[in-house]
């Protein structure tokens, strides 16, 4: 009876030993005011590959710390490294480095060197965890690297009264693959998260707000996934350009407000999925240009100025099971040709009826109003918004469509709001539409 228990106990011990052996591979060098090492730079220079540098609480006036051997830099009791505007703080040029629990601050704008609090250059397996980065030009800057984890950091800049060019990005990635960016809180920079030529990466559960330009900005970054992020109150919202195979799901785009602000700006995006997102109070929730084969499904568009601005350069995009409520304009476009599909969306402005009670309206709905077209062509005509004359024209156009695009139509508008949670009704509708789509193919 006792034997198996004992064996398990022994096994656990051995396992623990192995694990401990791995974690404690190398020595621990402690940095504090009264220790052998009083500066981080000193400790890093003295450390051997695989060592741990434990930094105790306090403020260290340091900059230009170069990490060129595998190390673990761990902060204890919230240590602060203040560069005092003298350049970059941490430069990582080697694989297998962990930076954890530090507060890094004060980096001046440097147009030539692009100074960052943490720069990773040609490295892999770098982990940047639980750091706080305050008042810097760039926050975390990765280039030509791979397999990086950036998790639970707070990057806070000060963009008051600064121009766009005097600001850097909070998290900046350039030619870096397989990155996991999760749980970060970025604010007050130019772009919250910037990705250029980044592949196979995941961006999860981040909060990006109050950035001067974009909350999230990516270009030429194929095969990435963005889920459960919140983009709020950024100068121009979120912009994504020249990218294939993107998944954007369960994100929230909120309060991206202003003359040139967008919830989500899509330019040259192909074969991508935009699902279960919430767009709330944006000037333009989605602006689409030259974007094709997108699947836009189960999103909520609430109280936006324009829910969707669909340029005629977009081809083969599908809009299904979305809710459009309280938007000033549901869809607007700049021409009459339309090669996109709208099906089974809920339009709050829909006034049709449903005689056979199957939940689908019997009259097709044209989400583009004449006035929306007019505003697109002659912007100053917004001054006539809600004018009786405009309502009259819109209704006339509804009866006899001549200017609005004939083909931009939802043939099966839903009578009731789509509930995106997993209730049965929704699953049923989903199954119907997917089977219908399957049959079409």
């Amino acid at each position: 009876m006792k034997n198996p228990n004992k064996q398990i106990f022994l096994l656990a011990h051995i396992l623990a030993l192995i694990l401990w052996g791995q974690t404690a591979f190398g020595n621990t060098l402690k940095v504090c005011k009264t220790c052998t090492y009083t500066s981080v730079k000193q400790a890093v220079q003295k450390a051997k590959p695989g060592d741990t540098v434990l930094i105790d609480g306090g403020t260290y006036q340091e900059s230009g710390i170069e990490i060129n051997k595998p190390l673990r830099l761990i902060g204890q009791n919230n240590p602060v490294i203040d560069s005092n505007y003298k350049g970059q703080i941490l430069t990582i040029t080697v694989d297998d480095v962990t930076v954890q629990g530090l507060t890094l601050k004060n980096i001046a704008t440097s147009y030539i060197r692009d100074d960052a609090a943490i720069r990773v250059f040609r490295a892999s397996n770098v982990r940047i965890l639980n750091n706080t980065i305050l008042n810097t030009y760039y926050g975390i800057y990765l280039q030509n690297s791979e397999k990086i984890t950036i998790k639970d950091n707070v990057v806070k800049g000060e963009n008051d009264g600064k121009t766009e060019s005097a600001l850097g990005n909070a998290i900046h990635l350039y030619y870096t693959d397989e990155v996991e960016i999760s749980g970060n809180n970025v604010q007050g920079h130019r772009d919250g998260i910037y990705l250029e030529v980044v592949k196979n990466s995941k961006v999860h559960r981040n909060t990006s707000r109050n950035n001067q330009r974009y909350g999230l900005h990516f270009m030429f970054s194929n095969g990435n996934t963005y889920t459960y992020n919140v983009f709020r109150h950024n100068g121009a919202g979120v912009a994504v350009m020249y990218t294939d195979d993107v998944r954007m799901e369960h994100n929230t785009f909120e309060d991206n407000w202003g003359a040139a602000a967008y919830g989500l700006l899509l330019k040259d995006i192909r074969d991508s999925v935009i699902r279960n997102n919430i767009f709330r109070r944006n000037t333009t929730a989605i602006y689409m240009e030259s974007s094709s084969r997108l699947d836009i499904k189960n999103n909520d568009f609430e109280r936006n100025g324009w829910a969707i601005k669909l340029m005629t350069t977009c081809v083969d995009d599908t809009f299904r099971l979305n809710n459009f409520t309280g938007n000033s304009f549901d869809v607007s476009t700049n021409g009459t040709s339309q090669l996109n599909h709208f099906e089974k969306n809920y339009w709050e402005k829909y006034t049709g009826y449903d005689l056979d009670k199957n939940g689908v309206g019997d009259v097709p709905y044209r989400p583009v109003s004449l006035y929306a077209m007019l505003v697109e062509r002659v912007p100053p005509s917004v001054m006539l918004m809600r004018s009786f004359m405009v309502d009259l024209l819109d209704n006339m156009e509804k009866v006899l469509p001549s200017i609005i695009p004939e083909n931009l139509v939802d043939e099966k508008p839903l009578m009731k709001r789509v509930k995106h949670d997993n209730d049965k009704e929704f699953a049923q509708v989903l199954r119907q539409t997917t089977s219908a789509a399957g049959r079409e193919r």
Partner: protein
Amino acid sequence: MNKIIKYVLLDIIKSKIIIAYTVFLLLLSIGLFNLGGSPDKGILSLLNLVLLTVPLISIVFATTHFYNSYEFIELMVAQPINRKKIFMSEYLGVAFSLSAAFIVGVGIPVIIFSSGLTGFYLVLTGVFITFIFVAMAFLASVITRDKAKGIGIALLLWFYFALIYDGIVLFILYAFSDYPLEYATLAMTALNPIDLGRIIVLLNLDVSALMGYTGALYKSIFGSVWGMATAFGLLLLWVLIPVLSSRRIFARRDL
């Protein structure tokens, strides 16, 4: 003057039209607020009501009232009273009674369902619109002695400001769309009290879609306290110009 205003008010209340108007507004506003779901939507629907029916009823009621009380006016003119005073009492009597009806009919539901700055602007705009269109009605009435003609002119004025003007503006904007029209539209807005009122309320309400460049311009001009003061100052001008010119015509005309 106060005495004459009192008589005019009593006369209007006796006709019971004003009470019907109040009840109509009250029912409509409560209905719209209950139907719309959100108070914002209620305000929007109410805005359409304020900008369409309030001018119409004000202008028609005021014109018919003026012609109907012609005998009373003639009697007053025979007394040693300044003609301008008689005219102003008539005007204020009608305008006050219609505004009171509006404040009771729309103001009270607004306070109950969505009291806020937007609601306040809506009610204030409505009161101004009432004063403006009563003034226009009086202008139409003093221009001609013929009742049918007067009502015709009044209706035409309403038709012009509520509908035709926007059509013209739309046409101008469309025809000259290659030019920067932002300041031109601003000027055109100022030339129509209904448009002005609509934009004052909209800037506080449906702001997002109004943004754009024109919207931003409007916001920068009307957004501040001074901007709002300017907008309401323009509305006040819209009251004063027809009132003063019709008073002048009335004072000099052979009755």
